[in-house]
């Protein structure tokens, strides 16, 4: 038993160490390697037709702000090259009227109303919007976002490359000064986009489509029959579908879009748990496909698999703590017998944890936000909070995968056997 525990601890430390090295690689590349202009240099020269889909559910507070931003967008609106599809998704407030008002006022805005829908999910709303989107490129913006005037121009530029299936822009919080949490989330976003996404893009790995401030080629979305309406992480799911079909996603660091982040820990916890469950379900769906893909080179497979495991890591970390406590209680002096493990554990606690903070520190430095660097230690309680939520999300997703989804798949297979070629969903 004790040997098994020792091996398990070493495996956990090794996995965590692999993630540490990955983060340092990203930090080093983003901070010190020359950042190529890429598609950003011809932003504004390549102007395909664009549909912008905006799902809104009870968003009366922010709906008109987003639509105003899209009206002011610096993109040619002649010859039907630009359209906005504002979706009132079963709203019970005045969102519906706001959407209608804008649709009446501007010819390029279409109002889509969903009511009494069977499936109440964001991807279902997006799919409803997609049926009305007929342009070459489809971009998505959530209602609480504020795209600046040049955002669409910058976002569509990478589509000049026919291999690009999707794009993702940078999300920047505007309400950072509101609370301590918003300040910390601002730091998280800064590190996540300025360093993590940009490095993955530059290194030819797997930058991720984040569900908003980005989009896809309409033909690609059509080939995938739109988003999976039941998925909690339809964005990650679509990212992997793109890569597994031999296409790629581009991250555009200069296509900034501003958002209001949640200001209280509880809703943030709910948000992270939902993302965690969805992301883990993607891991169950795509991990083996990613490893066995014939389109992906070795490092893209490696990074893709690690990216899928991001929300599995809190569970690993929690497992490490529990095993550590077990060893401490039942097999002292465990640490003395395993000084290498002790060194690795300490290294993880110090160097490993610092990898993430290094990314944030470097990104603050690049963004010239000198005072924000002082807030780094405040990220620690939130990191502990995420470990707890992430562990719960992993257990939830595992149960969901083994029970509900298994049952659904079996039903679908039975239906397919009865009616081959028919609708199985």
């Amino acid at each position, binding site marked *: 038993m004790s040997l098994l525990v020792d091996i398990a601890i070493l495996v956990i430390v090794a996995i965590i160490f692999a993630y540490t090295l990955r983060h340092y690689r990203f*930090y*080093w590349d*983003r*901070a*010190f*390697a*020359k*950042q190529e*202009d890429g598609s*950003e240099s011809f932003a504004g020269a390549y102007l395909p037709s664009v549909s912008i889909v905006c799902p809104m559910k009870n968003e009366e507070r922010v709906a008109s*702000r987003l639509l105003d931003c899209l009206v002011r967008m610096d993109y040619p609106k002649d010859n039907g090259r630009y359209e906005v599809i504002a979706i009132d998704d079963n709203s019970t407030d005045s969102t519906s009227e706001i959407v209608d008002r804008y649709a009446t006022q501007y010819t390029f805005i279409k109002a889509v109303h969903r009511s009494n829908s069977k499936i109440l999910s964001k991807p279902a709303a997006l799919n409803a919007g997609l049926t009305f989107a007929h342009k070459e490129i489809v971009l998505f913006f959530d209602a609480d976002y*504020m795209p*600046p005037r040049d955002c669409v121009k910058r976002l569509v530029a990478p589509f000049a490359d026919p291999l690009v299936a999707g794009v993702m822009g940078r999300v*920047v919080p*505007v309400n950072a000064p509101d609370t301590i949490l918003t300040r910390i989330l601002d730091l998280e976003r800064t590190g996540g986009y*300025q360093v993590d996404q*940009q490095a993955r893009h530059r290194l030819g790995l797997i930058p991720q489509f984040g569900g908003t401030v980005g989009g896809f080629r309409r033909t690609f979305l059509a080939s995938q029959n739109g988003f999976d309406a039941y998925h909690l992480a339809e964005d990650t799911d679509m990212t992997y579908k793109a890569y597994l079909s031999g296409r790629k996603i581009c991250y555009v*660091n*200069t296509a*900034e879009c*501003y958002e209001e982040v949640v200001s*209280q*820990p*509880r809703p943030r*916890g709910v948000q992270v748990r939902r993302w965690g469950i969805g992301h883990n379900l993607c891991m169950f769906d795509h991990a083996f496909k990613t490893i066995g893909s014939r389109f992906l080179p070795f490092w893209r497979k490696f990074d893709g698999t690690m990216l899928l495991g991001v929300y599995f890591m809190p569970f690993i970390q929690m497992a490490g703590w529990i095993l550590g*406590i077990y060893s*401490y*209680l*039942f097999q*002292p*002096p465990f640490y*003395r017998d395993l000084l290498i493990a*002790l*060194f690795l*554990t*300490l290294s993880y*606690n*110090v*160097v490993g*944890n*610092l990898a993430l*903070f*290094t990314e944030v*520190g*470097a990104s*603050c*430095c*690049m963004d*010239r936000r*000198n005072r924000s*660097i*002082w807030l*780094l*230690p405040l990220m*620690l*309680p*939130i990191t*502990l*909070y995420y470990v*707890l939520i992430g562990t719960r999300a992993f257990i939830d997703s595992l149960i969901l995968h083994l029970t509900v989804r298994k049952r659904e798949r079996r039903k679908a297979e039975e239906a397919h056997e009865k009616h081959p070629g028919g609708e199985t969903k």
Partner: protein
Amino acid sequence: MRAYVVIQVEAKRISLERGSWNLKLERVHLILGTVITVVVFLLLIASVQQYWIYQANLVSDILRFAKVPHSLFLLGPSRGTEFLNAVPPVFVITKMVLPRNVIFALIGITLVTILVVAGLPRLSPPVKIVIGFILTPAIVNLIYEILHPGQPWPLDVDWLTSGIVIMPLILIVFNAAIFPVQGPLVVKVTGLAGCLLFSFVWSTLRLSLALSSLFYWGTFTFMFLEYLPCAFVDFIYMLFFYSMVMHRLAISQQRAE
């Protein structure tokens, strides 16, 4: 609110080109940092015995000040390694052994506290988690006290590793994350020296505190103080030093522009 948002948006738009900026790599500083890392690392390996003896003497002085009766073992290098793997250089026997009933009562009180804290609607989740993070080692160490009464094993390990293991890690972090960043060398070297000095002072104080608590309050308190602040506190002070130095470097970069 709206006006504020517009101002924020406009302010951020002005510096949009930051999207393709990067930090200038200070190759010379990186090489210097690597040399410093290697030299300090070799010095540490060469003087590990002297380090422990010096630290044990310091701890002994502090214990004498705190009126803690103790034995100080300072053996020569020939037997040093063998000795250090067996018992710590300063040996203290506790004068307080908690009765089992008290331990069970303490476990009960801690569990009730955790449940009360978890149920308090006004406390935000991260605060609850930090409280839980402090109370969990308390329960773990109370259980340890039942399972292994009077055996403070981790002291050996802490004495072996305190200061010594963390120092190479500090060197690695500074070399990888601070030295390559553009900025005055003096800030980087001062930051590194400050962090190393702090780690030495902190590990000495921690050992003294742990040994005093072992004598006065028994194994449980000692284990609690040892277990909780070990690597966790090492990480926190490194993070503080990192953010402090990065802040200075960022300011100097901006001034240079």
